[in-house]
């Protein structure tokens, strides 16, 4: 599904690399968790995969279903089935949520050779998705994320995910800012969307979401590199011990 080979990236126009050689492979149907301290490059990794123009890839490859996507615009990647749920969802005043989601759904439907929804068909379609994340219909009429609470924004990301039916979802700290009930609802929603055909990369600081969504693999990102990978038990270990015991390791690996 996703194969990242020795990926290096920095902020466009700056010297210092943020990603310093990432290797990662996520297979169809798998869930991978990415953990790591603040500022280690987790969001940057997700944004580079999604095609954020602020970052420059200096070397390496990102293959999505075998195809190198680094030259593609973010919207092309999205239409191919790549979805990014933002750590900080952007407020878009003046653009209604329903307008955006309808455009999004129709963009992917068109790409897949399916008939686009007319506004009424879309309404029926989206009602089901709202139920999945237990969101009120009124959020459709509001401007995208504008004035939404932190938790509402995160739910809205998952609503969009559910609507776009991507093959690979990058969830950047979707669990942060959710209360216990919301976390359960969102996690259950995500679990319902899981299948043997799609994959997830879950960026998180906490074990609690992984109790609901059991990862196949856990990777620890430290200072722009994957310092350690393991099974779901690694997340528990990190919860207990923090990252300190890995920081030295990463450094050594980096020097090697």
């Amino acid at each position: 599904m996703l194969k990242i080979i020795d990926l290096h990236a920095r902020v466009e126009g700056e010297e210092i690399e943020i990603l310093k050689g990432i290797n990662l492979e996520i297979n169809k149907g798998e869930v991978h968790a990415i953990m790591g301290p603040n500022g280690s490059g987790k969001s940057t990794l997700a944004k580079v995969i999604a095609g954020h123009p602020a970052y420059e890839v200096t070397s390496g490859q990102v293959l999505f279903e075998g195809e190198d996507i680094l030259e593609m615009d973010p919207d092309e990647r999205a239409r191919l089935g790549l979805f990014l749920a933002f750590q900080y969802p952007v407020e878009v005043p003046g653009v209604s949520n329903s307008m955006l989601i309808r455009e999004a759904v129709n963009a992917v439907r068109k790409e897949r050779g399916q008939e686009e929804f007319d506004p009424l068909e879309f309404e029926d379609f989206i009602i089901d998705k709202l139920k999945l994340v237990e969101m009120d219909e009124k959020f459709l009429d509001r401007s995208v994320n504008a004035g939404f609470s932190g938790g509402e924004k995160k739910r809205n990301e998952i609503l969009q995910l559910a609507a776009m039916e991507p093959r690979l979802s990058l969830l950047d700290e979707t669990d942060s800012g959710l209360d216990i009930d919301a976390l359960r609802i969102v996690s259950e929603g995500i679990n319902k969307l899981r299948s043997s055909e799609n994959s997830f990369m879950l960026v998180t600081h906490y074990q609690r979401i992984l109790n609901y969504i059991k990862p196949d693999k856990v990777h620890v990102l430290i200072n722009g590199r994957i310092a350690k990978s393991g099974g779901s038990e690694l997340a528990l270990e990190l919860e207990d011990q923090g990252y300190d015991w890995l920081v030295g390791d990463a450094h050594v690996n980096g020097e090697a």
Partner: protein
Amino acid sequence: MKEAVQFKQSTYLKDLHENAVKAETGVDAVEQARATAVTNVDAWSFPTPRFEDWRQTSLKPLYQQSFVQAAIKSDVSSSDFDHIRLKEASDATIVMVNGKFSPALSTVGNLPDGCYAGSAIDAPASVQTALAKQFSKVARYSQDAFTAFNTAILPDVAVVYVAKEVKIDTPIHIINITDARAENVYSAARVFIYGERHSDATIVEDFIGLGENPYFNTAVSETVLEDEAHITHVKVQRESRKAIHISRVASLLGRGSNYNSYTISIGAQLFRNEPLSLVDAENAHATLDGLVLVDGNQVSDTHSALDHMKANCTSHQLHKVIANGEGQSIFNGKIFVRKDSQLIDAFQENRNLLLSENANVFTKPQLEIFADDVKCSHGATIGQLSEEELFYLQTRGVSRADAVQMLTYGYALEVIENIPVPTLREQLSYAVAEFTGAKIEAQDIV
């Protein structure tokens, strides 16, 4: 050669006026104002680029063309303006053709007791009294040849009068049509709005042109708010792309009154608008919001003045511009707070969105504060769309071009969404969408 043009320019309005057929309304207040205006058109100079307020805007498109006075008789029919009708205003649609009230095209149903909408010529005594008191006295533009020209040649005045303690629930739509189908014409549109104590009404002043010929429209409107009156005043300038529209929108606010004005600039080749709000009593509030769309070679120029003459008042001015192509926008917004006008809370912001490299905006927000205990903020921004917002939309599969259109549309809505007339909001939403190329569905309209 140069001298000759200069000379012609300085007497341009005077010459036009001299060749005009003398108009006569039979309304005392109007004719008295006209008598003064006629001498002023001769005395007051046509603006040159040396005038401080005309540095940025050239009137060449006006004085290098010739125009004839628009005929009073015209065969305009309902189908010429059905597309801008407001269904909420089906009971009060006043149609002015080339400045003259058209009884045949207008529909004025049963207004509440004491209220009036129509021509000054047919107005009842109470309205004549209001005209005698305030007509031509609110448009206090100093030595302004355009105001004088309008007053000197106007064939009629559209009047809206709202009686004491009456709330008119449906909007009143004044449709000003300039008929330029046969030749280059000039005309004068004049509006007088009067809200008695505790009255409440919404008035939409709309401007369209017919035909392909250039035309020159001067428009002056005056709004008087007595104590505690609430008037929402929308000016929709959707003239043809060949029009030169020079506009004065003046208001005088009484104690505790609330004047909310929204000016939407879509059409015309050259639009010059001068809103003037005289907040001459305590506890009043004035809103002077604007939305300007310019592309091609359009020029839209707003020179506003908001005068806090008394204490304890608030004002809000959000002027938003979207400039594309080689479009040009000028904003010069003055807010005065006089010496004894304490506890004023004034907000002013001019935001400019540049969609093309060749578009051009000039902005000059100005505060002139002579009182010491006030809260005033002003600012101006010129920018492109936010990269973060564009990226966000793109990650949702929306192409960059579509994302630009959606964001531009959203940017414009901030002004439109406050207009309390759904059909007008809808029309304007489509107009903005057409300007930006955005695809919108009925559901998306705010």
